[in-house]
């Protein structure tokens, strides 16, 4: 099964004619993802290495049956691109773009969540890979292998590190989902945990969090109440100084809330084992499987 992306994925890339969009879109195709179209207003009718370009997402949906979109447009156009995919009936929208204003996302995320049930992953995220099936985003496919572990993370490269540790130990992944570190993500830990809980292929979930906000604490409470599958966690930022903004907009500590220690405690008190570093996470997974 896997979640979000897989054999049924029919991908349209918004911004496929751009430098980054074409590089990663075609890389996703090389991985085996069914890339059916690109959207660039005004370039409809052309193609990128055989992938047809349309002017609107609606047209791509109509002419190619696209059901998943990857947003690779500049920040100022990204909220509009997400709304366009939603309006066109796209089911899974994966927004890679970094630097979208929080006001834009507050409006878009709230709107989508009250809408037709489409999933928005990101923005400012590495995407989703279901090894051997489909890769939508920038996660390097070669570090993954198919298997029973679902991963969900607010961080990109940290996810790679953990996937790498798992793969090196021979442990494969069902799907790896980067939800992004922005203040208002389209999907949060709970959304993805619920999908993994319902997924046949997933036997265990690794949750990778970081300082700031209370997403990990809420996920811990939710998992305790709703998860039957084991969860192993990692939190980055134990030694981050308070009040400093470290890259992700989410990574700000204020007072006692949102510290790595508080998050780890919340997870552990929900029965979730927390690794002290990425290697230890992989070891805990190996033990639990």
């Amino acid at each position, binding site marked *: 099964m896997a979640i979000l992306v897989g054999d049924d994925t029919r991908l349209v890339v918004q911004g496929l004619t751009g430098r980054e969009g074409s590089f990663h879109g075609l890389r996703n195709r090389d991985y085996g993802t069914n890339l059916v179209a690109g959207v660039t207003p005004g370039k409809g009718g052309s193609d990128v290495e055989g992938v047809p370009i349309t002017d609107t997402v609606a047209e791509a949906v109509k002419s190619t049956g696209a059901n998943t979109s990857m947003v690779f447009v500049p920040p100022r156009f990204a909220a509009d691109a997400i709304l366009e995919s939603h309006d066109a009936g796209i089911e899974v929208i994966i927004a890679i773009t970094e630097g979208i204003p929080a006001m834009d996302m507050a409006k878009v995320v709230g709107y989508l969540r009250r809408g037709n049930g489409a999933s928005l992953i990101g923005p400012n995220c590495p995407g989703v890979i279901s090894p051997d099936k489909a890769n939508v985003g920038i996660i390097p496919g070669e570090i993954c292998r198919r298997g029973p572990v679902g991963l969900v993370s607010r961080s990109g*490269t940290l*996810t790679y590190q953990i996937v790498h540790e798992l793969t090196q130990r021979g442990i494969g992944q069902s799907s790896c989902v980067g939800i992004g570190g922005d203040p208002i993500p389209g999907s949060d830990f709970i959304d993805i945990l619920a999908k993994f809980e319902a997924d046949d292929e997933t036997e265990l979930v690794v949750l990778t969090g970081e300082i700031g906000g209370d997403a990990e604490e809420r996920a811990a409470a939710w998992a305790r109440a709703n998860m039957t599958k084991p969860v192993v966690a990692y939190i980055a930022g*134990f030694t981050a100084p308070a009040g400093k903004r470290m890259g992700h907009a989410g990574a700000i500590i204020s007072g006692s809330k949102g510290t790595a220690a508080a998050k780890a405690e919340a997870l552990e008190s929900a029965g979730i084992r927390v690794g002290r570093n990425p*290697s230890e996470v992989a070891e805990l997974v190996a033990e639990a499987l």
Partner: protein
Amino acid sequence: MDLFEYQGKECLRRFEVPVPEGRVATTPDEAVAAARGLGGKVVVKAQVQVGGRGKAGGIKPAGSPEEAGDVASRILGMDIKGHTVKRVLVERAGDIRSEYYLAFLVDRSARMFLGLMSAKGGIDIEEVADTDPDAIARVHIDPAIGLSDFHARRLVFGAGIDHQARKGAIALIPPLYRAFVELDASLVEVNPLVLTGDGRVMALDAKVSVDDSAEFRHPSFAELKAAHDIPEQERRAKEKGLNFIKLEGDVGIIGNGAGLVMSTLDVVKAAGGDPANFLDVGGGAGAEVLSNALEVITSDRSVKSVLVNIFGGITRCDLVAEGILSALGRLDMEVPIVVRLDGTNAEQGRKMLADAPHPMLHAAETMLGAAARAVELAHAGGA
């Protein structure tokens, strides 16, 4: 970006939120002129981004322009919790009958905006939240539908604002909300909101934080930013497009992605070391970025070793290696550099480094191994 009080008030004034009339001064003479322009009694307020200005002596009344100059000369240059006062805000003084609290912020969990109001103003709102949570009225505002009049009423009536201040407070909320949204703010906090002797309601202090990501639609952000003092090293890093924060230790850290860098700080600390900085080269960094990152970090004399921890995704390890080699060729490298490469084109990158041996360059196989090595080298160098 957190704005200074005077900047926040200037912004709010543009949205017709009532704020006291005031002028900024950087010298006592300017303060005298400002007070003269305002006429009557004034208050001179240190412009620093730290709480507790008043207790520290950073806020003083003045009955005349001359007194305003005297007061300003005492406040300017003052050190308040590590912040040097470079500017004062000279404001017309008014008598205050009551102090309230009012704020709008983004509630991440609810994915909505949150309005907060309390009749207990002028003090730390977190203290109120702890000791008397019912004293804070809260309303969620769906960003799609925006603020409706009832939200303002729920805040004002819910907080039990004094009868005389209700109308003014209800009238002030829509412009404050507009300012919050249109400034792309993550927070606008008015503490205290005051009822004056003559029955007006106004923002006596204002804390405004704006979203740097929205700078493309706010040309004024650059101007606002110019007033902020950024440490020299951070400023240079920023100019080179690096996300850099100075810390207190001696192990320089370079990584790609905020999460991985934070994790690297943690493992260095766990290995007994002290990180000298946080430096995220971001996604898709090329050779030049890496070379710049090494330059910025090694310019700090306290750095005894550097750990480069890269897991390539959108970033290519061959370009990382190229950047490291370029820095080694370009700079007179005096501290050891431990490099760990994995992910996209990692083998090529590792080979490039192995093919160009340098006495200061140390390859490492794993993240934990790299951290241990960097700490060991720092300790050796510091000894």
